[in-house]
């Protein structure tokens, strides 16, 4: 779908109606959006939801002149942490878009785009809020995690937006500070529990309106100087900003600013040694004099600042070791949105008011701003208008730099109709369920129920030690307690034999083994899952255990040997099983059953990729078209790691293991991992198509998403896609194998599709499915 259509569709969804191409005449200097208590979450390794650290701050978006010769209107987004505001309230006015270290730039350095800046503030309120924020924060987290809607009580309150011309702005500011006696602050900060005692927006509004203002209408903010907006819908849009206990007063700040980047360059030039004779690194290798630029807005100074989405945090980078870093300093962030590659709005509540704004630079640096208490819909409408403004000239062929090409509203949610019909009906497999599955002899009588339960509901982590050996074919489903005990004893003995065989290698055999296997294994085990408590710390003995298992596996299965990635797959198994021999045999089962454990050159990987390409062709045609247009894109490089490590590095471990289990359940298909890939693509690849990313950018895009995709969503979507696939009346012969490989009893015969030869992509010659014959693909009972 062309981007304008996506936009239109999205805006229709959000705004509930056809949006005509009326260009919103934003004026430069005008604040088009502002919102308090927008959160930034520092990147942390997330093991639990409570690990999220919230840094609330104040967000404003203003229209500025930027680009070449400051001739192009662009939007500047600025976020200032509340902590900064608290410490330096004046920062918001004086250094709104500038770094504090840039004090060497006198204010006269800041060019006024055209002197028409408005200024409007409830700075005092902001401070109160900030003071309160800390005390209320615990409360906020508790309540917001409880899913309560804070907005509801304020929905009917009118907005309090005021603007004034610059000459009056500073007096306004002071005045407002004066107007808020300390007693009020104290009162408010001590009486948070009762909303009634809090200054209402109306009161604040009244205060502000005492200052003469040329345009005090709320519509000013939304719609520029043309107050065309329907006022009823307007107040509805605005009302979401009056969230929690009046904290979310609309506060807007305008600061004359010059082009952000030229300012930054200016700083760099000032600080760096003469660049004429020597070449200097911009960052991070900067000489000491440049280190000061650490103090630049975090967006600008940090690499791929990857925050969170859907409450999943992001480690430093997709390639970094997941070492926990908690000392993150959230700094102000200011950016010219026109220089960004994309803007994404992700709504994560059913009302479509809260969610995340994700700003991506062309270098795929991400800044994620969390709207925990509404307001995102309003931002959506503002940006939407803005992008319509910009689309119009594009379509008429005027060549102008066009920011916001990539503005898009995303709702990474699976619609009801996309879900598997049984979604949500089957609960987690916990001890009760497990006990019911076993008969008195310990045999699993109804393994289908078990598999289905794990597939839909997941497995209680405490049962992994018990259940994984079944899923990994260590123990036959029908085995009794006694048989398993014997089997375990035999296996442990056999394992000892393997160890002995390995340790008795000599001469050339040993040299070969050492060079081809041991060498690599030794390098890999020390860098595998060291953040997992089971492997953490120096000289952890479990690392030696992991090494032994991998070496023994290379002896046990000479053909497979050792491939990088195996240690990644073994580590969670060992951490659960905790016994060397048992973990080894589970690992053996994992290697045998898993088509995803292989190298890119192996047949299994090729087969997986071939199937995935076909699935994409059938189920995500727009993305398939995109892949076709780019060199090497069909190699699907970006999902090799997904398949090879079964999403282990794409999601935090708990959800990744849930995916492993869903794959191991072999419910309906042996290729559930491909549907997981497909789900990721269907949820996150719209961006790729919209931005027309080429092959390497796609790799960057998806590896940037690692660890901050919504795993539960992906699982739901994947189940839905599998269902959708099963409903297809006919499937191409290229995917026949996908059906034939189905586990026992999984491909319900009532759904057996017709297989057709696609001739063009068919690899078999002659194809058993050619000439429109209709072989009954009745794999109902499986192999």
């Amino acid at each position, binding site marked *: 779908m062309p981007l304008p259509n996506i936009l239109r569709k999205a805006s229709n969804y959000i705004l509930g109606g056809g949006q005509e191409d009326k260009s919103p005449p934003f004026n430069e200097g005008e604040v088009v959006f502002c919102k308090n208590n927008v959160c930034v979450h520092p990147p942390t390794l997330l093991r639990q939801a409570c690990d999220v650290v919230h840094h609330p701050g104040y967000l404003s978006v203003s229209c500025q002149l930027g680009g*070449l010769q400051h001739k192009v209107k662009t939007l500047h987004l600025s976020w200032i942490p509340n902590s900064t505001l608290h410490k330096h309230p004046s920062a918001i006015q004086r250094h709104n878009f500038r770094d504090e270290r840039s004090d060497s730039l006198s204010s006269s350095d800041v060019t006024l785009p055209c002197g028409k800046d408005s200024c409007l503030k409830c700075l005092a309120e902001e401070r109160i809020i900030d003071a309160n924020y800390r005390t209320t924060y615990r409360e906020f987290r508790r309540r917001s995690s409880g899913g309560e809607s804070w907005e509801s009580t304020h929905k009917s309150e009118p907005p309090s937006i005021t603007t004034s011309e610059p000459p009056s702005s500073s007096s306004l500011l002071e005045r407002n500070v004066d107007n808020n006696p300390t007693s009020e602050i104290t009162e408010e900060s001590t009486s948070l529990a009762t909303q009634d005692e809090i200054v209402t927006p109306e009161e604040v509004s009244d205060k502000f309106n005492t200052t003469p203002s040329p345009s005090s209408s709320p519509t000013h903010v939304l719609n520029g100087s043309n107050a065309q907006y329907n006022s009823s819908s307007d107040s509805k849009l605005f009302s979401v900003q009056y969230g929690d206990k009046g904290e979310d007063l609309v506060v807007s700040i305008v600061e004359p600013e010059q082009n952000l*980047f*030229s300012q*930054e*360059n200016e700083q*760099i*030039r000032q600080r760096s040694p003469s*660049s*004429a004779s020597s*070449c*200097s*690194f*911009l*960052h*991070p*290798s900067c000489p000491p004099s440049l280190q000061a*630029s*650490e103090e*630049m807005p975090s967006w*600008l*100074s*940090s*690499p*791929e600042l990857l925050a969170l989405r859907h409450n999943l945090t992001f480690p*430093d*980078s*997709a*390639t*970094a*070791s997941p070492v926990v870093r908690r000392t*993150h300093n959230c700094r102000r962030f200011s950016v010219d949105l026109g*220089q960004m590659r994309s803007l994404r709005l992700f709504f994560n509540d059913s009302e479509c008011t809260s969610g995340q704004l994700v700003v991506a*630079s*062309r*270098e*795929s*640096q991400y800044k994620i701003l969390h709207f925990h208490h509404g307001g995102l819909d309003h931002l959506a409408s503002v940006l939407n208008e803005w992008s319509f403004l910009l689309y119009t000239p594009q379509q008429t062929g005027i060549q102008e*730099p*066009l*920011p916001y*090409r990539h503005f898009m509203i995303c709702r990474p949610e699976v619609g009801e109709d996309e879900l598997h019909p049984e979604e949500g009906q089957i609960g987690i497999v916990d001890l009760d369920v497990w006990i019911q599955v076993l008969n008195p002899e310990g045999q699993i009588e109804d393994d289908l129920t078990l598999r289905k339960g794990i597939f839909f509901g997941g497995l209680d982590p405490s049962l992994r030690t018990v259940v994984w050996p079944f899923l990994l074919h260590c123990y036959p489903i029908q085995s009794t307690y006694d048989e398993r005990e014997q089997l375990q004893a035999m296996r442990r003995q056999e394992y000892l034999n393997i160890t002995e065989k390995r340790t008795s290698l000599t001469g050339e055999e040993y040299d070969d083994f050492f*060079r081809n296997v041991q060498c*690599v294994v030794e*390098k*890999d085990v020390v*860098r595998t899952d*060291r953040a997992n408590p089971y492997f953490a710390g120096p000289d952890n003995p479990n690392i030696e255990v992991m090494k032994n298992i991998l070496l023994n596996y290379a002896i046990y299965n000479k053909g497979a040997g050792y491939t*990088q*990635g195996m*240690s*990644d797959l073994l580590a969670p198994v060992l951490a659960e099983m905790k016994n060397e021999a048992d973990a080894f045999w589970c690992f053996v089962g994992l290697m045998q059953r898993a088509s995803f454990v292989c*190298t*890119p050159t192996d047949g299994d990987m090729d087969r997986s990729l071939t199937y995935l390409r076909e699935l994409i062709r059938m189920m995500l045609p727009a993305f398939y078209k995109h892949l076709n247009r780019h060199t*090497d894109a069909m190699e699907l*490089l970006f999902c090799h790691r997904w398949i*090879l490590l079964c999403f282990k*590095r794409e999601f935090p471990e708990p959800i990744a293991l849930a995916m492993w289990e869903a794959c191991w359940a072999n419910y309906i298909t042996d290729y559930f991992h491909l549907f997981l890939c497909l789900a990721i693509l269907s949820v996150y690849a719209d961006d790729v198509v919209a931005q027309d990313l080429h092959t*390497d950018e796609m*790799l*960057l895009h998806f590896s940037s998403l690692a660890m901050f995709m919504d795993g539960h969503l992906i699982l739901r979507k994947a189940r839905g896609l599998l269902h959708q696939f099963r409903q297809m009346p006919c499937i191409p012969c290229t995917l026949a194998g996908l059906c034939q490989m189905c586990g026992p009893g999984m491909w319900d015969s009532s759904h057996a599709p017709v297989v057709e030869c696609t001739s063009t992509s068919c690899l078999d010659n002659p194809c058993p499915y050619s000439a429109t014959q209709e072989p009954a693909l009745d794999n109902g009972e499986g192999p």
Partner: protein
Amino acid sequence: MASSRGGAAQRPNNQSQGKICQFKLVLLGESAVGKSSLVLRFVKGQFHEYQESTIGAAFLTQTVCLEDTTVKFEIWDTAGQERYHSLAPMYYRGAQAAIIVYDITNMDSFGRAKVWVKELQRQASPNIVIALAGNKADLANSRAVECDEAQAYADENGLLFMETSAKTAKNVNEIFLAIAKKLPKNEQVSGAGSTNQGRRLVESEGNTKAAGNCCSK
């Protein structure tokens, strides 16, 4: 975050900045010689003792400033193990630069590096700038590859050479800079298949892809 990198902050979109060139650089070498660590040090200024093994490939970008030219590297970091070798041509296709990394404490990795050099000389773009990096220079007391030997090999083959240490950051930026200096920045680079051959990005060019091979002004 302790790290930092170029990127948006340094995007030179004001008038005083000169041209911007973009180059594809690929890192090759045996596993665990420190390819990803070099990239991480260069791009983010970080070092992780337990850098995870690279599975498949990783892609990162970093910008360096060279007098009036801004050089943006698109860095492909590849998996080192032999079994991933068949994917390598895809990574080095169209690359204007390569860093072949070996571990100075491991003679085998130096041998492997030589094989990579031969392969690139035979199959990569003819004008590819190749640098040889003897990494883990901080472990010089367990050195297995003599610096002179590597230097001699590099000279014979026309390679840039440096001993580097991702851990101490020794020569990491320097090697990338040396490559940046050696890359042709004015004439259009002719290469195989890539759409982003040494492209110059026109100032305020919104879409880098649209620039294509544009090196016109």
